[in-house]
């Protein structure tokens, strides 16, 4: 690298201004000619069959164009493979409008299309459907008998052995022991932007699909497979995404419904979901867990048992890494992990921010707090006594791990040393004060991605990658920083174009890997441009750079020249003009160095310290302070990275204290389906939040050394709050959310 002036700087978002002024256009906002509007009708029952669709009454309304249901849908393939998107966990993916079968409550059963949104919505409200209802089962606790081993491999995860060492014997002979049942509730993602797809009918079977997605290419592939269309005829565009948190990883049902309507009507169609309909989509599944921990005489972990039972649908075995992390985070020789799934008459769950450890580490980290009291050790000290230098689950060394520094720096900043461990011992006036801590771990990986770059004679660089529009992480900003620094340009000379399926490929945007994957491709393509520029410069007459090797040349501020000799500089524009070139181009694919990476476990870690104040009379809990130390390799942009971690911390507060989707099992239906009754924190719930990025170097994860911070922020937060509530009140709560009724 010629300089480090941009990467690592707290650069403001390059697209911030257009977002806050409303100039950024989202999937449901594109104005296309002749647009018709679709509104989805959802099932009022959880299981059964549709016996009749009374479309005629609705079609008689002037302006209603069509009612699509299983009775009149376009031909659809009868092969599960055609519905398997890149994240399908196997099984038989849900097929909207395929047949009369009802598999879950709020399942889409019809799409009404009309000249206006209001008319479509009204027609959908009066459309009558007859159903034949069958008994359903939505209660996880009653479905234990039907549980099966979670197919981790089918879900893309390491399929670990069920145990290592001798967990039962170690439990029997442990010095100190704790055991408990833990529950993490169902949660819905609820991004601010509801789901929408605008399909532009361009004639001759050509479609442009404006989609809210975390995977431009995943969406395109799904549409092509379901409707038997050629890729060149389906362009998917995704420029901005108003939050997704995993819910847009797989194509949701508004995508095929909008495409079907457009193909059938041969005109452009938009389908937008309401907030209430957002609760018909996927979610973080309920996780019922049991954890047992036992210690050696020195306080280190002698044994660790973690069992989880999670809900999934009847048709897809969705599994996440609920128990994996219990085999990774601490050193322990005798480990027993079990993850079961039970099928319910519900929609399939999907990844939701830090899917797996959010539920699993809540249980483990609360159990560890219980063990700290059992052993009399400080919770940090207890964790340090079982500090893992290797990933015990996969038996690999870590590529880098600065968790110890996270504990130290965050604890110091928090003032943890002042803690009196005795429950109910600390007060602020009439309020009980509690301090708690917890830890988290997530993995980090790089996926294959492409990048194309064009440097024009005016010295401007355009970098292109098809990754979906920014989900809020600041992707475009970080990519511009990487490109500008690699080529030696000011940030203002770089434009990042993204979000079109005709652009170079990107993986779905999840798993905290976009910065590392797309960023590496962008770095690579810019390095190629450097080489081209140098070659061209060296071909110039009287070139002072002719004999120079790449390491002797400096690229800075749109110029190249001999290192430390500014008088030898020539601008990129001059190089191109001298060769009468309008532009330089390069295109690359960057693949992970799999062979090298597979030798290591690449992980991001955190440590979270929390202060709560509890009103002992009426049970009000306030999180007054939260300090989180994060070790995530190189931080490409401390401002956007901090922003991501803060979002995770806020979400963790909500998860701890209020967030839960409630199912009425009589109807098999989620009942608090609005943001008035599905509670997330508001500004008044949030007090002091502090993020510390611990220095960590990692040359394994990717050439940038960046591990990604999308998931880590939320981890440990809910457990730390539950532990702080115990410290404040003496009440050990193992079930989230910690609402005041549980404290009275």
């Amino acid at each position: 690298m010629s300089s480090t002036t941009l990467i690592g700087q707290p650069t403001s978002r390059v697209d911030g201004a257009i977002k806050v002024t409303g100039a950024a256009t989202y999937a449901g906002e594109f104005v296309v000619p002749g647009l018709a509007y679709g509104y989805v009708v959802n099932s009022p029952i959880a299981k059964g069959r549709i016996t009749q669709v009374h479309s005629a009454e609705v079609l008689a309304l002037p302006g209603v164009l069509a009612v699509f249901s299983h009775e009149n849908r376009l031909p659809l393939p009868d092969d599960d493979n055609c519905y398997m998107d890149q994240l399908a966990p196997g099984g038989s993916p849900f097929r909207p409008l395929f047949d009369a079968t009802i598999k879950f409550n709020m399942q889409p059963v019809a799409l009404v299309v009309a000249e206006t949104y209001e008319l479509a919505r009204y027609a959908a409200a009066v459309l009558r459907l007859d159903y034949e209802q069958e008994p359903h089962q939505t209660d996880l606790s009653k479905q234990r008998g039907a549980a099966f081993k979670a197919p981790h491999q089918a879900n893309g995860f390491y399929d670990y052995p069920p145990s290592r060492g001798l967990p039962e014997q170690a439990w029997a002979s442990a010095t100190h022991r704790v055991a408990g049942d833990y529950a993490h509730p169902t949660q819905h993602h609820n991004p601010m932007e509801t789901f929408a797809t605008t399909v532009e009918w361009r004639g001759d079977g050509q479609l442009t699909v404006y989609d809210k997605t975390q995977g431009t290419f995943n969406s395109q592939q799904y549409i092509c497979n379901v409707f038997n269309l050629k890729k060149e005829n389906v362009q998917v565009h995704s420029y901005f995404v108003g939050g997704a948190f995993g819910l847009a990883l797989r194509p949701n049902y508004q995508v095929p419904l909008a495409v079907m309507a457009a193909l059938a009507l041969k005109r452009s169609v938009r389908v937008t979901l309401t907030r209430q309909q957002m609760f018909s989509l996927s979610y973080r599944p309920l996780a019922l867990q049991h954890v047992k921990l036992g210690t050696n005489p020195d306080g280190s972990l002698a044994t660790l048992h973690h069992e989880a039972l999670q809900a999934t649908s009847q048709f897809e075995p969705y599994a996440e890494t609920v128990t994996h992390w219990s085999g990774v985070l601490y050193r322990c020789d005798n480990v027993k992990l079990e993850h079961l799934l039970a099928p319910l008459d519900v929609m399939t769950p999907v990844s939701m921010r830090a899917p797996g450890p959010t539920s699993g580490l809540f249980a483990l980290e609360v159990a560890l707090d219980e063990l700290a009291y059992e052993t009399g050790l400080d919770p940090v000290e207890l964790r340090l006594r079982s500090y893992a230098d290797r990933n015990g689950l996969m038996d690999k060394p870590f590529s880098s791990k600065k968790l110890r520094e996270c504990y130290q720096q965050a604890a110091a900043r928090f003032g943890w040393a002042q803690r009196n461990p005795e429950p109910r011992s600390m007060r602020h006036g009439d309020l009980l004060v509690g301090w708690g801590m917890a830890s988290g771990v997530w993995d980090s990986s790089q996926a294959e991605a492409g990048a194309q770059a064009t440097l024009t004679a005016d010295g401007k660089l355009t970098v292109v990658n098809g990754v979906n529009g920014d989900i809020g992480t600041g992707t475009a900003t970080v990519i511009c920083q990487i490109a500008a620094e690699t080529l030696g340009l000011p940030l203002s000379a770089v434009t990042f174009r993204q979000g079109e399926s005709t652009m170079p490929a990107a993986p779905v945007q999840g798993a905290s890997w976009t910065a590392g994957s797309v960023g590496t491709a962008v770095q690579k393509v810019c390095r190629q441009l450097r080489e081209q520029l140098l070659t061209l410069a060296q071909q110039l007459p009287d070139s002072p750079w002719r004999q120079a090797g790449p390491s002797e040349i400096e690229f800075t501020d749109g110029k190249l020249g001999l290192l430390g000799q500014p008088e030898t500089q020539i601008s990129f524009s001059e190089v191109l003009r001298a060769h009468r070139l309008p532009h330089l181009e390069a295109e690359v694919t960057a693949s992970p160095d799999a062979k090298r990476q597979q030798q290591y476990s690449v992980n991001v870690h955190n440590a979270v310290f929390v202060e709560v104040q509890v009103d002992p009379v009426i049970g009000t809990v306030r999180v007054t302070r939260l300090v989180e130390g994060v070790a995530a390799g190189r931080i490409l942009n401390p401002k956007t990275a901090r922003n991501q971690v803060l979002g995770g911390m806020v979400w963790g507060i909500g998860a701890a204290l209020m967030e839960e989707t409630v199912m009425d099992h009589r109807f098999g239906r989620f009942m608090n389906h609005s943001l008035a009754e599905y509670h997330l924190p508001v500004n008044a719930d949030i007090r002091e939040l502090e993020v510390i990025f611990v220095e960590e170097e990692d040359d394994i994860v990717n050439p940038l050394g960046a591990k990604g911070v999308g998931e880590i922020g939320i981890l440990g937060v809910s457990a730390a709050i539950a532990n702080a509530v115990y410290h404040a009140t003496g009440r050990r709560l193992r079930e989230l959310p910690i609402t005041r009724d549980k404290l009275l």
Partner: protein
Amino acid sequence: MHPFSYSSVNDAAAAVREQATHSHSTFIAGGTNLLDLMKENVARPAHLIGLNQLPLAFVEDTPEGGLRLGALATNANTAYHPEVEKRYPLLSQAILSGATAQLRNMATNGGNLMQRTRCYYFYDLTTPCNKREPGSGCSALGGFNRIHAILGASEQCIATHPSDMCVALTALDALVCVQGPQGERVLPFADFHRLPGSTPHQDNNLKPGELITALELPKQGFAQHYHYLKIRDRASYAFALVSIAAVLELDGDTITEARVALGGVAHKPWRERAAEELLIGQPTTEATFTKAASYLLRGARGYGHNDFKIELAKRGIVRALQQAAAEPRGPRALPWA
């Protein structure tokens, strides 16, 4: 949303006449609840009568030394009105603990009384609800009833009235001025809302065609010793699990007058004079307050998820009375639970 027609009127008499000429018509002012209900197809009026041109946005003194709040004065303008802040800080505090700044800017005083329950089942057309569809059953009974009533409910309905403002108005003995086809009349606030009984679809005692024109506050505002305690699932923008409006008049440490009204516990703001009489002549001690609290909750029953509200209400009443009895706080304190 079902199609509807719309007309706008300039005075209350015209509004009442207009209502008589349209079947299935409804008045609309701020619309902060009605529009939600219409979008969810819970409310399906064929005609809306817009009230925002009516000259009812006033806040003015009454000859008796009280204050009249126009039905169209917004919640925000009422809460921040200097006379309300000074003379009826309880009301100001209660209003500001409800909804959001944006909603309070739109919502009117009359509309606040007319808002409907936030029962999940009432809002979901796929589930039975006697309030929405008489005779269909009550899904909250035996269902998810964390936010439901513990007092005065019936086997037909266990919904609660969601207002904060109305709890304060109940404690302050406000009057509701209405105008209808038979002319004007005045209802004591306590008689405005109804208990569900066997007619849960009727939230209040307005007769067909009647329009709220004003709320009248009597002279006594309890500006020295008051507290509105709202207990909810997050710090703002959540309906009360339990709320308590408590006001006191004191002679030293002795209570000479007391009012306690509860929100979030019944189909209407809950108040019993007998409980308040237990406080008169008593010292401002926890024991005194606990006695009144126990009396108010003596008939309470839970339905499963909301059992905790009985104990919570008792503790909240004691807390609110303690706060009210504490040093005079002056005008409007921040709502905080």
